[in-house]
């Protein structure tokens, strides 16, 4: 925080490519990984709202299970697409992903604790916990992917 160097040049694309260097990471076309995971987050939250709107009574679980399955499938599809991206700044990706995962496991854990504490039990609790698990995987994945996609391969700057 002590050295925000205001004279460091912030370069535009013309300047970056003018010397024949590698194309900008902006121009690279990547699979819709972020879009898939954001859609998964939306499905997880929809499932959470559906269940929460019915508590403390047990609602019909089919819609919530369907949303959970759909969101989980989108997350898996995103992971498969991501695993095939070459080259990719995996060092940066995992640097961000592991710390974000730690943070969102804590957040999901607190939310899960509230449900358990409130005596939510059985299948409803299982669906809620699985929803939180997918949610806790989704958010770090979006963060890590968004950061890593703009990094040159092998670059891990940041803290």
């Amino acid at each position, binding site marked *: 925080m002590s*050295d925000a160097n205001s004279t*460091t040049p912030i*370069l535009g694309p013309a300047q970056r490519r003018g010397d024949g260097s590698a194309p900008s990471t*902006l121009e690279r076309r990547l699979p819709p990984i972020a879009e898939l995971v954001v859609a998964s987050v939306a499905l997880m939250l929809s499932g*959470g709202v559906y269940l929460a*709107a019915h508590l403390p009574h047990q609602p019909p679980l089919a819609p919530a299970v369907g949303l959970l399955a759909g969101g989980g499938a989108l997350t898996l599809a995103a992971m498969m697409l991501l695993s095939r991206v070459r080259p990719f700044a995996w060092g940066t990706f995992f640097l961000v992903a592991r710390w974000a995962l730690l943070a969102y496991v804590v957040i999901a854990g607190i939310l899960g604790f509230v449900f358990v504490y409130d005596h939510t039990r059985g299948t409803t609790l299982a669906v809620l916990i699985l929803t939180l698990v997918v949610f806790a995987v989704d*958010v770090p994945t979006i963060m890590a992917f968004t950061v890593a996609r703009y990094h040159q391969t092998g670059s891990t700057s940041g803290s």
Partner: protein
Amino acid sequence: MTDTAHSNGRTAPPHLAPVEGATARPPRSFQIVPLRGLPVVAVVLAGLVATIASNQLWAIDFFHVVGGGMWTALDLFLGFVIGPILGRLSISARTEFTTRFMPKMVLIMPTLVVCTLAAGWQLARHLGDLDASYSHHGWIVASFIVVAVMAVIALGILEPANIAVLFELKKPEPNGEIIGRLMRRFIFTAAITGAMQVATLVIMTRIATA
């Protein structure tokens, strides 16, 4: 944070041109996650868990009202007051503000959100508002939907952009086009976030006076 973009994308504006004769500089020295703030976050979250576990109504209400009030106020103030001001500052001023301000938001916003939601849930349960037979249950469900919309925007769009901008600014030669593209997300979502926060105020005041 609606308007801290460094460029609008396709072509490099003159103010993003490199300084004459400049070479790559050492990365800016700032922490993307301010480590000194982590103990504060830990204390707040521990207080939240203890409050829920002890089921003290006043403390639960405190976490929900304080967390929610700060969340709403920050969102509206940043989106509609600070953002437009930042948009009129010089690039160097915006960069310096961003590197000092945004790391703090990495800790502040998730902490406020989890305090508001967890305490709010427990408060609603305590007061019987969660029960479908509650006369204003519709408002409760509406608040769930509003929070879900804000969560998708915050977690899926804004928070990743925030982190990515900070990583970009740590590079020896930050790419103005990347920063501009990421910061446009804040501009595009400001209206939605603002509308959702105003809806939250309406819903919460309706419930409180029901």
